[in-house]
């Protein structure tokens, strides 16, 4: 799925990385536990999380994940946006719950990591 399609399905706003909206994302992974994210061997994925803090961005940086969607209507702060921009990430913010977001993306064809 293209990032712009993901944003549309999730009724999400683009907090940064709008220049990357044409990029294809193959898989989705949901977690509020960053240690789990750090165990993944794949990286062409979008991280779907309700954990909105700097460490979510850092985790994505280390794991080579270049797209994150923050769910439950949570907003990234300016420090997070700055770090995300430094790393060329696309950040989306969706008003939907984690369950709803995941269901919609799965239905739209985004693949699970496992």
């Amino acid at each position: 799925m293209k990032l712009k399609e993901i944003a549309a399905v999730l009724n999400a706003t683009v907090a940064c990385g709008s220049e990357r909206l044409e990029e294809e994302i193959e898989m989705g992974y949901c977690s509020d536990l960053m240690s789990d994210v750090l165990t993944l061997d794949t990286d062409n994925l979008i991280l779907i999380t309700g954990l909105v803090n700097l460490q979510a961005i850092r985790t994505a940086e280390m794991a080579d994940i270049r797209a994150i969607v923050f769910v439950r209507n949570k907003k990234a702060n300016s420090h997070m946006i700055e770090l995300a921009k430094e790393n060329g990430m696309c950040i989306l913010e969706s008003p939907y719950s984690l369950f709803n977001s995941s269901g919609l993306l799965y239905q739209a064809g985004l693949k699970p990591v496992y």
Partner: protein
Amino acid sequence: MKLSFPIQGGDFTHAGHPSSEVKKVLKQLDIDVKTIKSIVIALYEAEVNVVAHAYRGTVDVEIDENKICILVSDEGPGIPDIELAMQPGYSTASKEVRDMGFGAGLGLPNIKKNTDELSIESEVGKGTTVKMLNYFS
């Protein structure tokens, strides 16, 4: 090449800065991306451990032609039973650390998974030193 960074216990805002810097250096050295990912994930987990458990620490990195050696040493409570701490799911992390998205007892096992050689030395009441070695493939 040698690099050194301080870590402050409890400072979650700056956790990951050393890993980020090491990642930039390794990219410049044109190291394979999978190898870089393993190295920075291991370092990041080790950093989070210091921030989560210790008072202060340092990251010392030594890079040569075919390997990277990273020493993360801290002044902190130490680990009474390293074997137990290596078991996935074993954790002594506070609620605050868990709220940050860590503290599920996966850090040390994940460091082991991402390093070619790992040694941990710890003295209760003094601190812990984690030595991680990765070869460039």
